[in-house]
């Protein structure tokens, strides 16, 4: 009986492209989702690294070799940018949640701050690691 009443519930439509011109606010929003979800890759590597550190020198050497190989370095570098982007976009979300910065000029300015700010913070972090 419940079967008969089943209806196709609508999913939120994918707006960008057919209905919506790509713009800074929507692009910087979707990038928040992409960077946030992609963070699971870095979490996997970090937990693996911690488990290897707990297991002993041999397991640790293997994990370090992979994570600091050029592929590992690339993944970690992209994750570093990803976390900084997600960090700034998250702060912007908190500002939006407070009902502030929702007018278009301010929203666009905040979007550019996320984009440029994440690049600057990534470079700064890498410099700090080198020192």
């Amino acid at each position, binding site marked *: 009986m419940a079967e008969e009443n089943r209806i196709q519930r609508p999913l939120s439509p994918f707006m960008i492209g057919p209905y919506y011109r790509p713009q800074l606010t929507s692009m910087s929003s979707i990038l928040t*989702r992409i960077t*946030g979800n992609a963070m*699971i890759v870095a979490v996997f590597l*970090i937990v693996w690294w*911690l*488990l290897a550190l707990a297991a002993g020198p041999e397991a640790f050497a293997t994990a370090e070799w992979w994570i600091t190989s050029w592929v590992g370095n690339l993944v970690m570098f992209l994750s*570093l940018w990803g976390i900084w982007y997600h960090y700034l976009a*998250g702060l912007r979300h908190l500002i939006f949640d407070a009902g502030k910065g929702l007018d278009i000029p301010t929203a666009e300015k905040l979007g550019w701050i996320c984009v440029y700010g994440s690049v600057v913070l990534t470079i700064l972090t890498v410099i700090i*690691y080198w020192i």
Partner: protein
Amino acid sequence: MRYLTDRKRAVGKGSAHSGAEHHWHMIVSAVALAFMVPTFLFIFGNALGSGYEAALATFQKPFVAILTGLVLVVGLQHFQKGARVMLEDYTSGTTRKLLIMLVAGLCWSLTAAGLFALAKIAL
């Protein structure tokens, strides 16, 4: 004139009836992570590639162990709730339910594994 706050009017709405609580949890964990993540990035980045002895010494420190544990628990709960919203946007039916369960299992497994490693390193 309405005496209800915006929050009060949002509570219980939507098909899940728990969206306001979900959103509030994201805010709380986001603020917590905003304080913890920069310090963690600094500590982990310096420990990575510093060699076995140095990395062990770093993660044996109580502050580092506790901070890493908190980042894992709060970070993965934040991830679980965020990933769930993405799944609810793009999938439906049984696929959605299975993927939500998979993400929950993945997050708790990673949390447990990380905490186990931290405990073993510290003791």
